[in-house]
């Protein structure tokens, strides 16, 4: 994918190059070193440090970690809060809700034995374990492109630094990216990886798969009064402010009580939503006023904010995993189990399986370049496949039947049939094709934030500690610059203004009455929603200059 550029790039050679220091990438790195300590393994990470771009719930199922690092407790893994109780609410309106009796909770939502964690912190810890094994981790260096020669992936090239807005070299600052070549390259960029997306297209990996589906998760970390805090309490809800019966806007919310009076609260909105006026950010803000959430948050203080897209497709949306010289792992591949809202343990497991395959091939004297067929084979034989198989219908049930009925079907499938109903449901409409024209949609009047429970976008983005060098080429690229104003605005009231959780996209009125599409790229929290939801598929997210983006502490 790199053009024949004239720039001189430094080159380093590794056995395995891994893109992305999330649970998938780090688990793969650790596993490789466990299999053979002499392997040269390097991980590049676009965040300014490991964990800086990680945002998750998160309830963590320790199954994969038990396999990877059985003595994780002695090694100080940050799994401190065991889940003590699961509450599920169906929200019927602004203040109404009924709690689902424990008996009716689908098995996939039972969290006994799991932990409430910060995935960012777990990744920092995994990073330390990996480094102790000799893995080289380079945060602040995004992979910008795959190196593909004669159809074989040979590694990656990191992003250039020191380019100005026009892409020209800045005096004395220009630093060309470097080639990191690997016998195998594992892509672990998480949901909607920007290189993963290109690889899927180039190698036609998704020819036999259902379309991937996505959600956007918006999350805040709060410190709440001690008397309201119940470590280990898990609260989930479906319905208001989204649909409970209909299917136009689906999603669910969560509130997890961590340690030290901290709670994580968030809303996941299906990106299959139909109303272009819907704003996931504002839905989340009003959610917090519902008594179910307010009872915990009132009197507390918001510490942090962020957002990230997640995969919802499940088993049948997983594309082919391998291509010559490399593989996709974790959410870059789509291993999330959305029925459980869990993707970290599955991401870890897929990374471990790919690592095993690469280590075995290298041990046999392989020089890379081949297709790691043993990875998909091991996947099929693993608990990961079994788990995803059992949950394969969940997303489709919801898309087709709504939260209540779809949820009921899921209950029947999970609890009565152990996830093995004798049919598979498919959902072939892509998330960018679901919007109805603005002329047929109802505008949504969101309440003003009160500054206590709810907030505006700008003060929220501030709490994500996001920063980008201002003078650099925009990392949000429009294929056709006229589409936002000429097409998206009249047809869909340019939904980017609302789906972007960081206020990056604005339609501004010019003095002469004309309209201009403004991209405040420096605010971007790297959630990837625009790349997914733009109805014209006109926005392409690429990596900004290294280290740019959010600086999440414990998300």
């Amino acid at each position: 994918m790199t053009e024949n550029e004239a720039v001189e790039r430094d080159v380093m050679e590794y056995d395995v190059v891994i893109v992305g220091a999330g649970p998938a990438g780090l688990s793969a790195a650790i596993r490789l070193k466990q299999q053979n300590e002499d392997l040269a393994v390097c991980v590049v990470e676009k965040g300014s440090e490991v964990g800086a771009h990680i945002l998750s719930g998160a309830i963590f199922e320790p199954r994969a970690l038990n396999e990877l690092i059985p003595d994780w407790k002695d090694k100080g893994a940050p799994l401190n809060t065991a889940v003590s109780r699961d509450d599920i609410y169906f929200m019927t309106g602004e203040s109404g809700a009924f709690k689902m009796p424990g008996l009716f909770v689908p098995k996939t939502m039972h969290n006994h034995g799991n932990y409430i964690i910060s995935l960012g912190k777990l990744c920092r810890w995994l990073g330390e374990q990996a480094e102790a094994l000799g893995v080289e981790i380079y945060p602040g260096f995004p992979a910008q492109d795959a190196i593909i020669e004669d159809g074989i992936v040979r590694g990656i090239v990191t992003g250039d630094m020191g380019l100005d807005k026009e892409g020209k070299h800045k005096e004395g600052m220009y630093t060309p990216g470097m080639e990191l070549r690997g016998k195998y390259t594992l892509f672990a960029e998480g949901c909607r990886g920007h290189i993963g997306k290109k690889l899927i297209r180039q190698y036609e990996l998704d020819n036999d798969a259902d379309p991937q589906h996505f959600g956007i998760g918006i999350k805040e970390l709060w410190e709440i009064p001690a008397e309201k805090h119940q470590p280990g309490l898990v609260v989930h809800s479906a319905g208001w402010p989204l649909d409970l019966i209909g299917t136009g806007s689906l999603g669910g919310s969560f509130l997890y009580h961590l340690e030290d009076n901290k709670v994580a609260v968030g809303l996941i909105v299906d990106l299959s939503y139909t109303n272009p006026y819907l704003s996931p950010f504002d839905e989340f803000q009003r959610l917090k006023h519902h008594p179910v959430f307010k009872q915990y948050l009132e009197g507390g203080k918001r510490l942090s904010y962020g957002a990230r897209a997640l995969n919802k497709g499940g088993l049948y949306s997983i594309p082919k995993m391998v291509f010559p010289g490399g593989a996709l792992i974790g959410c870059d591949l789509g291993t999330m189990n959305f029925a459980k809202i869990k993707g970290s343990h599955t991401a870890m497991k897929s990374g471990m399986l790919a690592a095993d395959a690469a280590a075995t091939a290298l041990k046999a004297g392989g020089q890379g370049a081949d297709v790691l067929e043993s990875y998909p084979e091991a996947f099929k034989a693993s608990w990961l496949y079994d788990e995803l198989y059992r949950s394969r219908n969940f997303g489709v049930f919801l898309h087709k039947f709504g939260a209540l009925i779809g949820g009921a079907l899921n209950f029947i499938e999970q609890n009565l049939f152990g996830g093995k109903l004798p049919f598979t449901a498919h959902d072939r409409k892509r998330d960018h094709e679901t919007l109805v024209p603005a002329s047929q949609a109802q505008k949504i009047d969101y309440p003003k934030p009160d500054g206590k429970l709810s907030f505006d976008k700008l003060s929220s983005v501030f709490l994500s500690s996001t920063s980008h060098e201002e003078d650099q080429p925009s990392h949000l690229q429009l294929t056709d610059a006229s589409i936002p104003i000429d097409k998206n605005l009249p047809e869909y009231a340019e939904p980017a203004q609302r789906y972007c959780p960081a206020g990056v996209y604005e339609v501004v009125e010019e003095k002469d009455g004309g309209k201009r599409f403004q991209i405040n790229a420096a605010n971007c929290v790297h959630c990837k929603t625009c790349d997914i939801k733009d109805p014209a598929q006109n926005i392409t997210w690429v990596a900004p200059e290294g280290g740019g983006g959010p600086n999440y502490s414990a998300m």
Partner: protein
Amino acid sequence: MKVLVSVKRVVDYNVRIQVKGDGSGVNLDGVKMSMNPFDEIAMEEAVRLKEAGTAEEVIAVTIGGDKAEEQLRSALAFGADRAIHVKVNEEVSPLTAARILKAVFEKEQPGLFLMGKQAIDDDNNQTGQMTSALLGIPQATFAGELKIDGNKATVVREVDAGLETIEVDLPAVVTADLRLNEPRYLKLPDIMKAKRKPVETVSMADLGVEAAPGLTVTKTSPPPARAAGIKVKTVDELVAALKDKGLV
């Protein structure tokens, strides 16, 4: 000439600081830490001196816990030749830091001691001054420009009234201000090489230094939230509002 540069591990400047609920300090849990930005400028200047042939060796020193080694690795990636890690797990007051740096200076005998004008965590702006006083050598603080000529340095200082140019004899302590330079991007190959450069670890006892009686932080609180503004339509309204607040 040898150049000594001290660097400190601080909360990254992009991080939105949160005060702990009980006011006992700032929340550092999972927070990104970096090299103090003014120290980066000092580092950059030292490396430029080396590249220009003025300095032969650049030595970085830090005072801090185990993790402060990360900042020394950054300093080595910038281009320092070697590094000294004075391992101290407790909070270090400016005077203690100055005592430690004095001991390191005496051991290394550099021709120039560069450091940031202040650390962005406690904003004390004292260490450079104290170190020079303890050593009995000249100081040039808030440097916006630095020229070395033989055993003299000409420093343009950024002072309230504008710019002040002074000349000091070397060795001297020079503290870097924002405009001294723009630090380079660290290159991946340099970061890789930095992993293999030598870091010497010493303790305060090794250096024969005792902590100065410290300051005790009694309370940490966030700056008061700014009250929402109001809009006034006329001058009369403005005057009334000001009177109301007791401001005129």
